[in-house]
């Protein structure tokens, strides 16, 4: 991406787009976390509420997922910065 010579209007427009893409990305990540944790932790459909075991699993799963996502984004941003450069 070349941030050079953008007009104030262009900068503003790109900021709007960036916010939009970020929101969408958060939604994708959120849905992915829900899908995975539900799929992996919740299997007992004999009761309507989560069992203690399932709840514990969902907590661990989401905590782990968020740590995973954080690390992934860190590394991804480092690597994508190198992609266009040397």
């Amino acid at each position: 991406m070349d941030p050079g010579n953008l007009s104030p209007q262009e900068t503003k427009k790109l900021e709007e787009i960036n916010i939009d893409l970020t929101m969408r990305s958060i939604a994708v990540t959120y849905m992915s976390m829900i899908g995975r944790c539900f799929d992996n932790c919740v299997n007992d459909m004999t009761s309507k509420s989560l069992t203690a075991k399932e709840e514990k699993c969902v907590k661990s799963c989401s905590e782990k997922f968020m740590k995973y996502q954080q690390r992934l984004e860190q590394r991804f941003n480092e690597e994508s910065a190198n992609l266009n450069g040397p």
Partner: protein
Amino acid sequence: MSFFGMGARVPATGYDENKINGIKGEMLMIQQMKDKASLVCLEKCVPNYYSDGDLNKGESNCVDRCIGKFFQTIKVIGTEMQKQQQGGM
């Protein structure tokens, strides 16, 4: 350069639509690559059971290597696609 044959500036909006769309496309592409990397590296690095909420050392290292390889894969595929295009159909 113009995709839609109207490369001139648009004074009404105060910005070059094509330029903005180009940058937007690039941002979108990077975003989608990140989403894809997240999906594929999760499968390869994080097992489906959860004793606790920590990302352990092995899993963290796996994520680092996975991203490294993911980008190398992108480069290899990019080169192959260029070859294909230059070689004609």
